[in-house]
């Protein structure tokens, strides 16, 4: 802490109206233009979460339609063409427009608060990423409503999704949606990594980073190394379709399996960058409601890292039915088994935490307990799928559908709902209704198992995935009907959640700053937090800043000396978070929004003509330059604050 000792400690009277000034400096500008120019991480985070939830509901409605179609054999509610579009869009929406973005959205809102910062590292980029995500999602749903929805599955296997067997522009929209969401996801990842590494409160060393922040940091790194694969793959796909390249044309030296390798090299890690943030929510919620820090912090961190590394060695277990060399398959089976160890470790640590803690049964904890039951089942069926011989039987059957929903809904959606109940008071300043919350949980939990448990049996009884209907004499009818009943129950429980959220937002009990008696820094900010998060950014002296006294004897407890009328914050060193320099954040700007619009036009146009890339990039260059170009007035202010390194 050398630099800190150098820093002189002033003691003078409180500056009058400091809070008002800061609020004025950090808040979003007024008016519609102001709304579009907003870059405050909380505004963007809120919009991000709400949009992602919107897509979750849309994807859910698609799922409900499928369940109604499958409720009885030889059903003709929707025909094969529409059904294929529906299940493709359901998978695409849930994976690309809900599961991954919603986790990043939570991070955009929470991470700066949890590490005692005032903003994400690149707020304008955060805004741009959000708009790109939103426009991409709107594009794909527009295409669907126009009868041009993608219809080759969320995995878009070639040649089915290729130019020869996927006529029209349907799958081009899919491929371009990937580009949208990847741009968004990758930018947010850079943002989160830089935020976590450089903007942590002084004293928050690596060993003191909250587990949720760890999870998001690791996830961000995974995204950076996994997403490029599918981005490249979807680009090849669109080039094959638009300009006749031959990447996937076996007759001209291409290869059909190349797509599967590229897709699953991303696709399998993707499961984990949906799952790992869920683990982060788990740790945050369990610690608070067991009234003690999570047992085995180092083990937890190590497990998250181990998972993220092993996740890159699993992709071929989606391809066991192709003729991949046997030896390779054995390796991937081994990896699939191995990745269970870190997850098991975390589960045991949480159980230990609950066993040695004092338990406060509230809705967030209920959802966490739901995780244990559902995810453990999903994990075990995962082991079965990891084994080559068993996979050969259940691969591409409803057994897999059951498994993946047990893992993703159990491992991510249940913790996520818990997280929404947990952080709702922080975001809105009001508590959610506990009684509705419990109904919401029990209906969701029951409905989920009724909907998805029977699918295990359907799969073993030979029902393949992605069939729009099935003959009556296969005997799959009753279980499918049961499953549909479960699906409806889930829909009701989600409706309850919406009702609860909307009502509580207006009439919920006023929340204190720290309604759950939690330990992490976001609970030191107001509920809802002021635009500037912390009037005096905190200095951290331990892993549980709100629970334990500072471990750094005689260390200061808060930061002063930051400008009030300029968006200025403290940048710290990556490892041990020592104060490094004062970082000046950009002002709100309309240009990220305009740039996103321009990029959207370019991307959609390039579905129809390769030349759109050329004139489109010129179209994008203009707003991006304007975005970067500094304002004279701001520069003046900065010069006044300037101090050379």
């Amino acid at each position, binding site marked *: 802490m050398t630099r800190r000792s150098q820093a002189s400690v002033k003691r003078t009277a409180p500056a009058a109206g400091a809070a008002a000034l800061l609020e004025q400096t950090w808040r979003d500008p007024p008016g519609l233009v102001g709304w579009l120019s907003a870059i405050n991480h909380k505004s963007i985070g809120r919009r991000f979460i709400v949009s992602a939830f919107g897509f979750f509901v849309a994807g859910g409605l698609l799922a409900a339609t499928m369940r109604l179609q499958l409720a009885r054999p030889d059903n003709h509610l929707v025909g094969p063409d529409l059904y294929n579009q529906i299940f493709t869009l359901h998978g695409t929406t849930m994976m690309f427009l809900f599961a991954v973005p919603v986790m990043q959205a939570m991070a955009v809102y929470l991470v700066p608060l949890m590490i005692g910062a005032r903003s994400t590292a690149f707020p304008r980029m955060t805004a741009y990423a959000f708009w790109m995500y939103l426009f991409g999602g*709107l594009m794909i749903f*527009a295409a669907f409503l*126009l009868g041009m929805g993608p219809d080759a599955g969320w995995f878009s296997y070639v040649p089915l999704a290729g130019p020869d067997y996927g006529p029209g522009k*349907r799958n081009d929209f899919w491929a371009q949606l990937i580009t949208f969401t990847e741009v968004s996801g990758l930018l947010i990842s850079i943002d989160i990594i830089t935020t976590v590494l450089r903007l942590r409160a002084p004293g928050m060393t690596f060993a003191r980073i909250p587990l949720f922040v760890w999870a998001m940091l690791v996830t961000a790194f995974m995204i950076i190394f996994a997403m490029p694969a599918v981005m490249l793959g979807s680009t090849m796909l669109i080039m094959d379709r638009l300009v006749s390249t031959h990447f*996937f044309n076996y007759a*001209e030296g291409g290869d059909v399996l190349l797509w599967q390798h590229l897709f699953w090299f991303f696709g399998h890690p993707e499961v984990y960058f949906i799952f790992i943030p869920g683990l982060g929510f788990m740790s945050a919620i369990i610690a608070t409601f067991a009234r003690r820090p999570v047992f085995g912090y180092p083990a937890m961190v190590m497990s998250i890292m181990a998972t993220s590394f092993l996740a890159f060695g699993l992709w071929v277990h989606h391809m066991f039915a192709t003729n991949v060399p046997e030896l390779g398959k054995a390796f991937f089976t081994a990896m699939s088994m191995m990745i269970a160890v870190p997850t098991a470790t975390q589960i045991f640590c949480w159980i230990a935490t609950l066993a040695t803690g004092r338990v406060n049964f509230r809705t967030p904890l209920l959802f966490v307990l739901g995780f244990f039951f559902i995810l453990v089942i999903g994990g075990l069926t995962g082991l079965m799928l990891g084994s080559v011989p068993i996979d050969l039987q259940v691969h591409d059957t409803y057994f897999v559908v059951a498994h993946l929903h047990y893992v993703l809904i159990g491992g991510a959606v249940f913790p996520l709902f818990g997280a929404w109940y947990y952080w709702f008071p922080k975001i809105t300043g009001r508590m959610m209704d506990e009684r509705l919350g419990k109904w919401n949980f029990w209906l969701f939990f029951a409905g989920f198992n009724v909907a998805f448990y029977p699918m295990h049996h359907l799969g073993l009884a030979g029902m393949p995935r992605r069939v729009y209907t099935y003959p009556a004499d296969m005997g799959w009818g009753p279980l499918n009907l049961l499953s549909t009943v479960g699906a409806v129950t889930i829909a009701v429980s989600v409706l309850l959640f919406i009702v609860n959220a909307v009502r509580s937002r207006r009439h919920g009990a006023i929340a204190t700053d720290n309604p759950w008696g939690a330990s992490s820094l976001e609970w030191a900010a107001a509920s809802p937090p002021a635009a500037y998060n912390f009037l005096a950014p905190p200095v951290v002296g331990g892993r549980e800043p709100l629970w334990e006294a500072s471990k750094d004897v005689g260390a200061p407890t808060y930061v002063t000396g930051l400008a009030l009328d300029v968006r200025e914050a403290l940048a710290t060193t990556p490892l041990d978070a020592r104060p490094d320099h004062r970082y000046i954040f950009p002002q709100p700007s309309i240009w990220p929004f305009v740039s996103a619009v321009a990029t959207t036009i370019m991307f959609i146009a390039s579905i*129809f*003509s390769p030349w759109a890339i050329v004139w489109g990039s010129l179209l994008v260059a203009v707003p991006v330059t304007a975005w970067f170009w500094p304002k004279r007035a701001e520069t003046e202010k900065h010069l006044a604050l300037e101090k050379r390194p």
Partner: protein
Amino acid sequence: MSARGLTCIVAASMLALLPAACDRELRKLSKPQSGGPVPAIGDKPVGMQPGQPGPGLQETSSARTYDGQNAYELNQGKRLFRWYNCGGCHAQGGGGMGPPLMDDKWIYGHEPDQIYDTIMNGRPNGMPAFRGRIPQEEVWQLVGYVRSMSGQASPAAAPGRSDGISASPAEARRTRENPRTTGPEPPVKTP
């Protein structure tokens, strides 16, 4: 990029339902049922001589399902062009025993109905009659595809490259020829 492409962008991005965009991707999976008069059927088997129809199929006006801008119909047409071995004479549109189909020259006319007529009733010097051998709906699909070979279909609907040896550029990337009728005259023989 094409005007149609632009309309599609506007449609998609503005969520406005433009019929142009919808129809192009529509898949009419259930063809219209037809009644209508029962034509007389020749009783002796017919070979593939020009101008002589095969027996059996009942034709109806309601079966005119031509849509030269529908991606699915065009793609089906391309499949049938391969299945019925049209390439045997016309190659991949480049022409062989039969005239090329990629260029702007149409001996017997480029209008859909003229092409339909050519396929159904055949033409002198080699083009067999497919009446009675290919159902009307499929002939109309072939008509749409044949026109797309010289770029008459929107690039947003015309087929892309096939999964096979690519002899000629994909229909979606062909330059739109300005069709002109050159016949009636014997088809150009290329050695």
